[in-house]
């Protein structure tokens, strides 16, 4: 172990800057939330930068039908924030299904629900 620990430290020192899997950090509308009125945009902020060309956000209504939305795009100054433009959403429960590729090509996926009250 006396040999092994310095070896690990040396590897860390010479490593490239660490990127990683992109986890959902926060979302708007929030995960599992009940909101009064749907916003014009759905945005997910990840823990790492993501590649919009290789990332998707899909919205489905309570019946499972795909809701037409805009294409996913990232903010010019923050590639961790992936967003889609939303149409006017009628009241109901919605499921967000996302697949993203982080800037170092790691893939992650997830889904969550939110409810529009009015």
């Amino acid at each position: 172990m006396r040999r092994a620990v310095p070896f690990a430290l040396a590897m860390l020192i010479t490593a490239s800057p660490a990127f990683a899997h992109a986890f959902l950090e926060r979302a708007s509308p929030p995960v599992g939330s009940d909101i009064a009125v749907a916003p014009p945009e759905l945005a997910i902020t990840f823990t790492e930068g993501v590649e919009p060309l290789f990332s998707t956000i899909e919205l489905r209504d309570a019946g499972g039908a795909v809701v037409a939305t805009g294409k996913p795009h990232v903010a010019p100054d923050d590639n961790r924030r992936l967003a889609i433009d939303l149409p006017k959403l009628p009241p109901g429960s919605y499921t967000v299904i996302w697949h993203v590729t982080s800037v170092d090509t790691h893939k992650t996926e997830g889904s969550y629900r939110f409810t529009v009250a009015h």
Partner: protein
Amino acid sequence: MHRPILFAAFAGAGLLPIQAAFAHGFAGPHMFISTLLIDDPNVADEASLPTFSFLPQPTDGGPAPGLYALEYEFDKRITENFGGSVAAGYQWLRTPGAKTANGWENVEATLKYKFYVNPEHEFMASVGVSREFARTGANGTNGAVLGFDDSSSTTPKIYWGKGFGDLPIGFLRPFAITGTLGYTIADKKLKVIGSDPDTGDPLFNNGNANQWSGGLSLQYSMRYLQSQVKDVGLPEFVNRLTPVVEVAWSSPASRPNQDSTQYLIGAGVNYTAQAYAVTVEALIPGNRQTGSHMGVIAQFHLYFDDIFPNSLGKPIVDWWN
């Protein structure tokens, strides 16, 4: 992957292996953490460096000897779903009133193949085989006191993990279970070669009995709760935590044997950052054969696929692509 942590049985009965394990992996949105007492089902590029453990050993009277271990493991993918690992470590057995026994553990190598992943139902399964190379660690007096095997052995294993994401009750969905089961086949069978003229107790050769071993872990991912079920507004630090309970078990599978069935429980918490994880667990003996005092185990875990995404962190077959 796994590392044999050694826990003594009653005095005079030798030291028995229970497995420790490390790694992480995704099945759909569920990430199985790096567990410490059992191996998880994933194949990955990572290292556990180091894993420290302390566990008072069982006695039949008097103060309990303390077993300290400092171990490492290196895991490398050869293809996307097939990889290998090498693990070893150093141990100290401090017995009150006696000289401390210390030495390197035998080296163990494992090959593992992840043959099934079902993202929708958050399920993953793998098979593997481990080989412990006898006499690569301490032998002689120290090796005998520490209970290191004097002959090699081979262990076929199966691993699996299941997330609870398809349950209808939201706050149960962050739970996941992982498990492993192995059967250790000794190269040299344990045999009775005589009896002690003073006590009449049987004397054995330096072989080993075959052995069953395995375990389960129950995990609750705060990240999964926050990103898949409901964001309750917890700090990001809390979202990176996974409370975990593990139980490891081993039992002799052939006669004669010098071993007894042992259970060891670990209860603690894992913190997973972007490129590393830290886990600390209390070690709780599950029966008298495993001990009667609590210990502790802690691990620093490195994810090479995040630290070295273009070299050490990708499968060997992709190095020239």
